[in-house]
């Protein structure tokens, strides 16, 4: 019997043992009622609990969804998620803004391809290769691996897309607007390859082009490399300032670029140097034509900042494949040609010739050789006498450098002096020449001076004054017996400083002669700048005199002018009696040339001078 029923029976049994049926039934009924009520209570509470939990879950889910939405819409990057059926699950506000998606296309379930087509149809994304892109994209997505791609919008924006597959077959993409970063990268790449001032490609980019051109070469293709250097650009900067100088460079760059057009690629090498790769060409004639055009446009006054700046250029041209095929050879040969253009007078173009290379090689040998010559004492002086037509005797001897180079043999000063000036070794050579000449002259009679050529390079810096003093002191030669010969080129640069040095040397008692008179642009004006003791008429006048009344008239004028200014006028290059007679008739007082003596070596000159320095020692026909 159930325990409860047993108790109920016991409760319903009287003390006499009589079972009260009604009481029992009542107790049983109450028990059933209690059981029913408990069951109903349980049922209701469970039902209510489930409802509440469901509601809480729904609220929690809604809250989570709100938080999720807030989070993704707060992202700076665009975000989109698609399921394995290519249907949109969610996208955020940034994504919608990036692609200007209409609301209809941002609802969950929207097809991925519909959204892609929107971008294309709205013209936001380039339609180029659209179908191919779609196929490629589908392949990538279906591969189930992460990948990245960049999309260029027609408005210039660049979007970097990061694609991440999900475990359920869908995928998540983030979209980052990297336009600024892209622009910066493009700018950095541009700056790395272009000249900042002119916008032309720079040196390294140009050299890369040459290498590419090398790979492209074939027997029938003719190209050319032009090396351009502006003439006398430094004075523009010095006179007008760097701002004007830069503006001039920009204008020149633009002029050249426009003139060349699509015939070639122009670059700025730096400073006032440019280079052009011309291709393809019909031949050297076409290259020459283009070079002429370039010179012409540069020659026109360049207006900038209210100024008209006149400038010219020199161009060296190396033809491909004639003058080389690799970039190094072409640049070297173009440069040699440019060098020739400069030395030929500037404002011109010049093609590379084989000999330039040889000249350049010889030049390098001379350069090295001079250093050794100075160190090893291989330099010598020769002395050419100057003859006084008044006294008929030697009045002066001009010291001339001589160099017997072991590999080259005798090298003319006309060749090695310019090299010495370019390398700067002329200073040491000039100092040696001063010392040697003064030391030689001390043994001559007092009426015989010694003349030493001084290069404008020797005036740079302050060493010259000390060198002259030292030479005079060491030799004991009187300063008045030393003549320094200078040319007009001294006054082209830095004339204020140079004049200071001249005056300082003059204060020592040294004499000065203006050499090669008549060959420069402003010969007369230089006579006003400094009180020269002598002017030396250039040999070109002397050699040209015979039968030329105009030349004779010029010589006469120079002699009269010089005499009038109290200067000695010396004529160089006298080789014939006829020349001598003309000069004498024009009043020239001093002459120099092979007619009297060639330059004589140090071992011989002293004897020659001693025999011919006394008055009337030389019999000169009147």
């Amino acid at each position, binding site marked *: 019997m159930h325990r409860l029923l047993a108790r109920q029976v016991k409760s319903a049994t009287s003390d006499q043992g009589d079972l009260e049926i009604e009481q029992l039934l009542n107790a049983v009924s*109450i*028990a059933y009622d209690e059981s029913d009520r*408990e069951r109903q*209570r349980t049922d*209701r*509470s469970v039902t209510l*609990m489930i409802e*509440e939990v469901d509601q809480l879950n729904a609220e929690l889910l809604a809250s989570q969804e709100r938080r999720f939405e807030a989070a993704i819409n707060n992202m700076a990057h665009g975000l989109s998620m698609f399921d394995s059926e290519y249907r949109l699950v969610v996208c955020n506000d940034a994504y919608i803004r990036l692609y200007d998606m209409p609301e209809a296309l941002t609802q969950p379930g929207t097809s991925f391809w519909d959204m892609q087509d929107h971008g294309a149809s709205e013209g936001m994304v380039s339609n180029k290769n659209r179908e191919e892109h779609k196929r490629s994209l589908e392949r990538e997505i279906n591969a189930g691996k992460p990948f990245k791609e960049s999309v260029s919008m027609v408005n210039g924006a660049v979007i970097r897309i990061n694609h991440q597959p999900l475990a359920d077959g869908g995928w998540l993409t983030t979209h980052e607007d990297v336009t600024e970063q892209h622009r910066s990268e493009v700018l950095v790449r541009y700056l790395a390859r272009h000249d900042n001032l002119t916008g032309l490609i720079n040196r390294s980019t140009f050299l890369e082009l040459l290498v590419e051109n090398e790979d492209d070469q074939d027997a029938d293709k003719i190209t050319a490399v032009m090396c351009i250097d502006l003439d006398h650009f430094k004075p523009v900067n010095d006179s007008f300032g760097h701002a004007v100088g830069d503006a001039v460079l920009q204008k020149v760059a633009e002029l050249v670029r426009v003139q060349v057009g699509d015939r070639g690629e122009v670059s700025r090498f730096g400073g006032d140097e440019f280079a052009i790769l011309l291709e393809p060409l019909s031949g050297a004639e076409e290259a020459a034509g283009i070079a002429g055009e370039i010179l012409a446009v540069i020659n026109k006054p360049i207006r900038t900042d209210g100024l008209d700046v006149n400038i010219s250029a020199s161009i060296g041209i190396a033809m491909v494949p004639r003058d080389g095929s690799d970039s190094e050879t072409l640049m070297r040969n173009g440069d040699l040609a440019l060098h020739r253009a400069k030395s030929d007078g500037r404002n011109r173009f010049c093609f590379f010739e084989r000999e330039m290379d040889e000249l350049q090689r010889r030049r390098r040998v001379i350069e090295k050789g001079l250093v050794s010559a100075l160190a090893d004492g291989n330099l010598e002086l020769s002395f050419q006498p100057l003859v006084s037509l008044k006294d008929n005797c030697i009045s002066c001897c001009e010291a001339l450098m001589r160099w017997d180079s072991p590999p080259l043999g005798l090298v003319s000063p006309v060749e090695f002096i310019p090299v010495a000036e370019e390398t700067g070794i002329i200073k040491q050579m000039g100092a040696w020449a001063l010392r040697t000449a003064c030391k030689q002259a001390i043994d001559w009679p007092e009426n015989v001076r010694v003349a030493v050529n001084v290069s404008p390079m020797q005036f740079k810096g302050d060493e010259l004054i000390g060198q002259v003093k030292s030479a005079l002191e060491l030799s004991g030669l009187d300063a008045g017996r030393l003549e320094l010969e200078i040319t007009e080129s001294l006054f082209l640069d830095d004339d204020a400083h140079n004049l200071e040095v001249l005056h300082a040397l003059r204060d020592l008692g040294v004499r000065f002669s203006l050499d090669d008179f008549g060959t420069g642009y402003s010969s007369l004006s230089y006579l006003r700048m400094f009180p020269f003791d002598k002017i030396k008429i250039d040999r070109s006048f002397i050699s040209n005199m015979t039968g030329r009344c105009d030349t004779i008239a010029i010589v006469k004028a120079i002699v009269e002018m010089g005499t009038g200014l109290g200067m000695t006028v010396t004529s160089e290059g006298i080789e014939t009696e006829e020349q001598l007679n003309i000069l004498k008739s024009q009043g020239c007082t001093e002459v120099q040339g092979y007619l009297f003596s060639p330059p004589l070596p140090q071992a011989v000159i002293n004897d020659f001078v001693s025999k011919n320095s006394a008055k009337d020692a030389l019999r000169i026909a009147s």
Partner: protein
Amino acid sequence: MQIEKLTWKEGSGWQCDQGGKSAALILYFGNRLDMESGTWFPELQTLFPDAQIVGCSSASQIIGDEIIEDGINGVAINFNKTKVRAEAVSVSNVDQSRMCGEELGGRLAAPDLAGILLFSDGLLVNGSELINGFSAHVPDSVSISGGLAADGALFDQTLVGLNQLPVSGQIVAVGLYGPDVRLSTGSAGGWSEFGPKRKISRSDGNVLFELDDEPALDLYERYLGEEDAKELPSSGLLFPLRIFDPEQPEHHVVRTILAIDREARSMTFAGDMPQGWVAQLMRGNVDRLVIGAAEAAQQVCAGDYNQNDETLVLMVSCIGRRLLMGQRTVDEVEAVTAELGANPAQIGFYSYGEISPQRVSGRGRLHNQTMTITAISEAA
């Protein structure tokens, strides 16, 4: 110690099963309506003139392994060596609860105080605060056991008495002194929490207004259904609340409804309902509650417990358990007896709150919805 069972019935008077020997302490529990007046008390006093006579009204009474609804039942205890002193204070509103505890504790405090039996008004007192008041003078090592008087399912008024007819608004504490008294306690529920956790969004002391910003009374009426809702507050005992501090979720307490206010939509509980704490409904079924009672008895057995006839087992169970288990309520008493043995004298009542030491700290605590057992004996 010697224990004699006492039973009073209308018309029969007091029946003492050992003929009315002398006693130091009488404990009695009975139906409030039977207690309010009559000659039963003077007769009891005449029978035991030297005893401290302590008792309270109840929902149902436990005597032996039976549950009795009517009459008054009790025990007369004669201790061998343990001294007894009882004190009473009056209380008129719940705010005086802590002060009453301090007063009683102060009166009973002594170096040899070993334990306290505490019986309090069940409707005018915050049980938690009452017990906390004792700590001002009584160390945690002194066990406090007892319960809040009840009024069946009427929740009208409860009666407590010390050496006089029990009255409303009374709190009685009995001190047990000396080194020989042995006390072993146990307390367990068997209720299970269910459904969502809710925040106590508005409350004031032991009055609960809102859970998750919804009137708590609305929630109860929904869960009880129309029929049971009419019987609030008693039907509310079927769904006690488990509450805890969200900062310490592992420490929770169970709270029992004492009263409702349909206008204010509030519910008064037997202990504090701190605002901001988390509450969760609980529900029970007979089998789990019976298992709970057995667990409480097992806790007693694990303590300093003598399973002989000189041991008194005081069972204070919750009226909520009585209402839920109905005719099967006696199953839990039988489960306790099965654990503790048939020899000890068992007495108890169904209360509005149970008091016994907390298991870990030993501090006295108000429990709700539990079977709380205190076994009292003396050392041999």
